[in-house]
């Protein structure tokens, strides 16, 4: 389902921070697109730039950070737009759900008020109407006795309820794009499944696109139409979910898939990808994954591969793609 103009078109997005006189780029040259109503999964280890990419979409990169490249949302360029335009967009047409609902919610404000606030701001509702709407939203995200819960403070709710409240807040203005940054990571497994199910239900109801960020490929595979794999600030592979699992091209993706537990395969130990993501001041000249790659040769260590198409809708940044 490819539309002429995608809802979100990210081109060559780079986030740079000046550290000790040198510009470091924790996100570099990211390009992808997302159609309305579809779900994009973004996968990668901690520190590979997933969250910064998400924050850049909302213009929330903290002060010394510089964002370059292009983010076109519904046809309009976002990068470089004035702060007032960003504020109109945030929470309204592009909303975000964060990882840790305990710290991401204001501890001294009732959750009903926190939800209502968005609608007062963006939909010009009066407070009483907004509060009623907030109660309706709490009900829609499956919180029982929503009227009482609206008056509760975050610490009075369970982790799962807090994340539901967070989702209610994000969806208050029926956004066209929901950016979910590890929304299930802080939750236990049964609650994770409920939250994912909830997000899918709400997606089919509201018709929003979701950019779902997780370090957990298994979680992403449950709801993503397309998956982007990030490593050390770069996209290393991009493919429809089924293709990615079927024919992973990049050794890193293969490694991630191999580390997933498989009930059909009895294993004493799960495989691991040796080593860790390089520090930002130690990104290699060539392929950033070469250090940990079983296939890497001298060429890989001296020249950085570009993201090239392998087949329709499938890109990988690897000289050894498919081997």
């Amino acid at each position, binding site marked *: 389902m490819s539309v002429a103009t995608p809802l979100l078109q990210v081109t060559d997005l780079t986030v740079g921070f000046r550290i000790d006189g040198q510009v470091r780029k924790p996100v570099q040259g990211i390009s992808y697109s997302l159609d309305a109503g579809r779900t994009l999964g973004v996968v990668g280890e901690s520190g590979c730039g997933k969250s910064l990419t998400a924050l850049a979409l909302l213009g929330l990169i903290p002060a010394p950070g510089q964002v370059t490249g292009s983010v076109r949302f519904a046809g309009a360029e976002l990068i470089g737009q004035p702060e007032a335009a960003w*504020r109109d967009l945030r929470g309204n047409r592009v909303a975000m759900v964060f990882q840790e609902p305990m710290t991401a919610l204001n501890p001294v404000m009732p959750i009903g008020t926190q939800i209502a606030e*968005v609608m007062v*701001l963006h939909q010009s509702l009066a407070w009483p109407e907004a509060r009623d709407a907030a109660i309706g939203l709490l009900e829609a995200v499956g919180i029982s006795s929503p009227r009482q819960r609206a008056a509760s403070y975050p*610490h009075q709710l369970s982790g799962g309820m807090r994340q539901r409240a967070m989702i209610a807040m994000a969806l208050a203005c029926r956004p066209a794009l929901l950016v979910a940054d590890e929304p299930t990571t802080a939750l236990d497994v049964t609650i994770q499944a409920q939250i994912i199910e909830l997000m899918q239900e709400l997606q089919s109801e509201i018709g929003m696109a979701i950019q779902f960020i997780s370090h957990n490929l298994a979680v992403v595979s449950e709801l993503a139409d397309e998956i982007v794999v990030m490593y050390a600030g770069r996209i290393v592979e991009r493919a429809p979910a089924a293709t990615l699992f079927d024919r992973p091209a990049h050794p890193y993706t293969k490694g991630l898939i191999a580390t997933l537990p498989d009930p059909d395969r009895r294993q004493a130990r799960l495989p691991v990808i040796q080593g860790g993501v390089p520090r930002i001041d130690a990104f290699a000249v060539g392929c950033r994954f070469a250090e940990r790659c079983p296939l890497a040769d001298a060429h890989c260590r001296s020249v950085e591969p570009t993201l090239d198409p392998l087949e329709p809708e499938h890109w990988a940044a690897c000289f050894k793609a498919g081997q």
Partner: protein
Amino acid sequence: MAGFVLRRSLQALLVLWVMSFVIYGLIGLMPGDPLDVMIASNPGATPEVVAHLRAIYGLDQPMPVRYWHWLLDALHGDFGFSRTHSEPVLTVLAPALAQTCKLMLISFGLSVVLAFGLGVAAARKPGGWVDGFVSLFAFAGISVPVFWLALILIIVFAVQLHWLPASGMGTVGDNGFIDQLRHLTLPVLTLTLASTGQFTRYVRAAMIETMRMDFIRTARAKGLGEGRLVLRHALRNALIPVVTIMALSFGTLFSGALVTETMFAQWGMGKMIYDAILANDYNLALVGLLFATLVTLLSNLAADLAYGWLDPRISLK
């Protein structure tokens, strides 16, 4: 909540009672007694007269017995006579308390308002020029000794510019509101500048910490403007530690303005207690100190109540 206030009030009474005993004992430990002071100013007093007077005042009794008598009278509302003022203690205390209330409430109010304004402005951009200016001001306020500040203010505003009176509480023969206000201005300014620095540091630190929290990022992601972000989301959270510190220092302010009161010849609690102790006017010193204790206890209670009101995670039981 009502139970909490009741229990804390009973605790406060208990502390007051213990403190009355401790202060009574401490005053008893001071060398000499009121009669020694009397004798020093009246060399004609014979030992018989002195012994007779001692018996009349009950000073020949052991300390616990004297304390017991004092306590019984105090519970009946009789706090005794001030020896140096030859008036009942409460009659002496009332104007001093009124003056201290004026000085303290105005300067405390002003420094709280100033501290919030400056602290929040500084925390908007830590390390920026506003922050630099505010920090300089705050450090100056903390470092400059009060007596020096008072002297400088007197030299500038009273001696050089002749705008304001250098000291006193009112011009003789003129008891108007404006006149009182003019006399209050310099001491209030001194006290305000002295406490604003410290408060500002606390507000700034609390705001900077709060502005780094995840929920502030969430609030930004909702599209909130800086005004609502700072006032509705950050400030309420930053208030929690700040209110405690402010309430606690209110108690100290109340009894500790001796230097300012002396510099500007203000007859307030600090000066009154200090003079009473020096003159061995123990009835007055005792009640003055107990009053300062009471204010400290009450501001602690107020801090706890404010804390519970600001932070829903804390339940007062």
